[in-house]
């Protein structure tokens, strides 16, 4: 029951915001998103006291003749992502308080609609429903980018749209293919049925499914070499759009990989997993190197995000407890960190009207608080111990190391490269003597602090005490592995 509430609440909130007065839209959106957050905490509580969480879900027949159900289930894995979504959303809304978007009602309505779709994607346990939410999530973000984006947005957002759609259509193909291999005549889209169906296929068919689905997830994350939509889109989108894209939407891909691909096609993974890991690891190095030479701050973070996500993907593909759990923790951490970074860049660009790193410098002299917050977020992002990033990265590397020490070694280079580009950019923008552009840089306002403080609390808090996340995901991960490992490693 709580599951369906989690999905529907943002939807109705979205309608209310749309119908309501545009002036108070942002406040209403904040209010609703905070309510949803409370609801999420309640769900967290329920899941923790009730190890068998099936009672929290729901299965409502939808298109019964096709075996399609409105099936939502909560477990540790997806609840983590729902928590991420619903924790970040108020922050994202809050981060827009200083901005005045045109047609604010529509904007916040789209944001809340997006929340609905995202929560739906994470909770859906029916292949068809998953796909529907998957696509639904694309539409609001497309419009957010299209209507409130920056230069050249029509072309770039469209490229983004069609690129991701191309992946998801192939995913649909894969899902239908699986669906048809569920026991007939009444086939089923139920995730467990799809698991069974996929596991029963031969190598060739599994490889086909693997690529169909992997393509969708790889594009969404994005993994090298399917990433070219991402830097442009991140750069062009309005900051809140970028936050949604990088903070939450990206996790759809990693989540999909974890939930909808890995247990489904064990032979396909055995056949192509190494190649996928190779892509992920190449992506880490490649994107990190490119991030080093970026001049635009948003672009730099975009590439760094590709690198981070490559590590997450590699951890998932390694498919062991540490890898998966690390991936989940890192999904959470990456969401928090990247939103922080984008918010910081947004502050810089609104105050100086530029995102070009070379034009900045010396901001720390005039805005020490800002510099301090930036540094903490940055440290989280480069995975310094006692920040959230470290927990994830350590577990991920641990998981990958169990898969292959060499790959872990190469993937670990991101630790060094990340430090290089992050510190370089920090130095170039924050340190040194202030110039004409930055000498009048105003330090943080109360509103901005209200956004950054929760983020910093999450960054450090989860770095020191990640237990809530680990305890939440642990049993679910174990369950996932136990139910599919005997097949993956016969």
């Amino acid at each position: 029951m709580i599951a369906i509430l989690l999905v529907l609440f943002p939807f109705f909130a979205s309608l209310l915001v749309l119908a309501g007065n545009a002036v108070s839209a942002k406040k209403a959106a904040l209010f609703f998103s905070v309510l949803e957050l409370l609801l999420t905490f309640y769900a967290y509580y329920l899941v923790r006291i009730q190890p068998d969480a099936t009672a929290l879900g729901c299965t409502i027949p939808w298109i019964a003749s096709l075996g399609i159900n409105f099936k939502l289930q909560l477990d540790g894995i997806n609840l983590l992502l729902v928590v991420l979504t619903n924790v970040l959303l108020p922050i994202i809304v809050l981060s827009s308080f200083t901005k005045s978007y045109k047609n604010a009602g529509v904007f916040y309505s789209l944001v809340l609609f997006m929340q609905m779709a995202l929560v739906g994607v994470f909770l859906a346990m029916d292949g068809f429903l998953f796909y529907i939410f998957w696509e639904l999530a694309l539409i609001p973000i497309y419009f957010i980018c299209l209507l409130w984006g920056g230069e050249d947005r029509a072309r770039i957002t469209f490229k983004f749209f069609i690129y991701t759609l191309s992946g998801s259509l192939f995913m649909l193909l894969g899902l239908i293919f699986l669906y048809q291999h569920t026991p007939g005549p009444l086939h089923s889209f139920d995730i467990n049925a799809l698991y069974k169906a996929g596991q029963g296929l031969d190598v060739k068919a599994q490889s086909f499914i693997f690529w169909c689905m992997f393509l969708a997830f790889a594009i969404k994350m994005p993994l090298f070499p399917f990433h070219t939509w991402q830097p442009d889109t991140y750069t062009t989108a309005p900051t809140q759009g970028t936050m949604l894209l990088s903070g939450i939407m990206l996790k759809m891909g990693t989540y999909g990989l974890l939930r909808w691909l890995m247990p489904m096609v064990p032979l396909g993974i055995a056949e192509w997993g190494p190649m996928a890991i190779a892509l992920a690891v190449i992506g880490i190095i490649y994107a990190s190197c490119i991030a080093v030479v970026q001049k635009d701050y948003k672009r730099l973070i975009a590439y760094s995000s590709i690198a981070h996500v490559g590590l997450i993907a590699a951890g998932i593909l390694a498919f062991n407890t540490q890898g998966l759990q690390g991936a989940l923790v890192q999904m959470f951490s990456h969401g928090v960190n990247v939103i922080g970074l984008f918010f910081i860049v947004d502050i810089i660009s609104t105050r100086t009207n530029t995102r070009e790193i070379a034009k900045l410098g010396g901001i720390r002299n005039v805005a020490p608080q800002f510099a301090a917050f930036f540094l903490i977020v940055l440290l989280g992002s480069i995975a310094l111990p006692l920040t959230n990033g470290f927990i994830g990265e350590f577990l991920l590397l641990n998981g990958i190391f169990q898969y292959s020490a060499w790959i872990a070694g190469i993937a670990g280079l991101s630790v060094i490269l990340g430090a290089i580009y992050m510190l370089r950019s920090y130095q170039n923008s924050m340190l040194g003597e202030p110039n004409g552009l930055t000498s009048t840089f105003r330090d943080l306002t109360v509103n901005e602090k209200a956004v950054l403080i929760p983020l910093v609390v999450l960054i450090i808090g989860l770095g020191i005490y990640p237990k809530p996340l680990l305890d939440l995901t642990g049993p679910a991960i174990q369950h996932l592995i136990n139910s599919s490992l005997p097949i993956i490693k016969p």
Partner: protein
Amino acid sequence: MNQLIPLIPLFPLIGFLIVGLFGKKISKNSISILASGSILASFLVSVAVFVQVQNSASHAITVNLFDWISSGKLHVSFSFLADPLSALFLLIITGVGFLIHVYSVGYMKEDEGFHRFFAYLNLFVFFMLLLVLGSNYLILFVGWEGVGLCSYLLIGFWFKNTAFNNAAKKAFIMNRIGDLGFLLGILLIYLTFGSINYIEVFGQAKFFSSEQPVITAITLLLFIGAMGKSAQLPLYTWLPDAMAGPTPVSALIHAATMVTAGVYMIARSNILYTLSPFSMQVVAIVGVLTSLFAASIGLFQNDIKKVLAYSTVSQLGLMFLALGVGAYTTGVFHVMTHAFFKALLFLGAGSVIHAMGGEQDIRKMGGLKKYLPLTYLTFLAGTLAISGIFPFAGFFSKDEILAHTFEHNKFLWFLASIASAMTAFYMFRLLYLTFFSGFRGTKEQEHHLHESPKSMTIPLILLAILSLVGGFVGIPEVFHVSHWLNGFLAPVFADSEMKTMPEYTHHGTEITLILFALSVAIAMIYLANNYYVRLGKRPPEEGAAIPPFQKVLYNKYYVDELYTTVFMKPFNWVSDKFYRFIELRFVNVIVNSVGEGVSWGSRTLRLLQTGSIEFYLLIMVLSIALILFVR
């Protein structure tokens, strides 16, 4: 009593939080008291813990705070382990740390970033304490990276200066290279032993046979971490640059504590190293080469702090040499004595720089003996200690290293002796050029010359005393006194001892070696005295013609330039090409060309729609014909 241990890192953490968050709002005096006081409190608790460890039966106390990371079979708890090794380090860190805090109060008095400085310093101590207190490799790693961060922050303390920032960044990144190796080592430990807890890992390792490849791999990976943190070849170049930070920082972080973390880590993992003679060999060779290399560079440096920095690198090399030859206690012993005299030297140098108004070039000093008598005396004590003159602290530890090395490998002993000879030479060169002869600075500087305030000189004096007496905890057995430190640390190295045949040095040989080393040092001092005081030679001015050999040394063997050309430039080049060619001209182009291809197809295909009915008819007829034909 166990509950005391968490207090040790807690005090500096509290200090950091208060000073860091509210530093701007409270007075400098309160900050000084708070920051130094928190370290003093830690020191006092450390003493208590030290006593407790010594008295406890198992010589190890574990305190479990909370479960930190728990994933599948991996359990990492946030827990502390106090044993003789960590207790010793605790005392060094908090003790020397406290003195340096006190010193800094005077040194940084005028700086606008006063509160920031103490916040960072407290944070550093916190991480350093975590490093030595952690009961598993991951907590060690937390401290390891944490001190790296503080080092970054403090090197770049004066962040308006781009060169300083570059130095800070360089330090951080070079450390990260080592850290990656370390991290991989930890992962391999986990994979091999199923745990990263010291007690469990070492407990299992005891039963491993020697020379297993996996142990070699682990130890080499760990050693990469140590190379980065403890500035060994080839990852040492950050340390001389790190002198950009305020001088107390150089004393605390880049001489006394942080850089010895690598030594601590290897001493901690002694059983693993013992199992891998190959890794030991590597450690010893890298150590001795670093020592020699850095000492040779130190011969001709003109920056007072740079000289000390290279001497630090060189001394660290000696410590690794000690570890490499299996003399773990000796390595730790040298860490301790080195902490005393190197901190003293740096603080002394700081006092000089303070008096000179920021000037660091020894060519512009001279004759400071009479202006700064107290500084001179303490600096002399430090110099004697580092040169290994009896009965100063350095003498005992260094001779122990040489003795063990001699037993192990004569050639390494020979190299190490050269290095320590060079040390004696350049240290006295520094001393003579700074304090003897006449003043070479400007009139204005001369006018301002004055002895430092009490808060600075008192730590100097205390450290000088420690440099003098610190060595007595390890009087060689040749003098028929029991080696106290050996006994104290014995539980830590007990397992290693059992694995190796103890090497007994013949007492006669040992005395010969001691006398030889002493005489070489004295000869070097004489040489330096002769050259710089009696003959009054001065180092050449900037740009003056110097012999090629000297030039190479002066320019640090061009290693920085080498790294720039071999690593940084290609890296930037590759990154640039990745972006410009692969990303923009290849991956992007492929993706876009799909779109363009479709668009082109559209442009072309729409031409099919000629509008001409005849054409449409023709196509219809031909298609039907084709359909029928294929059928």
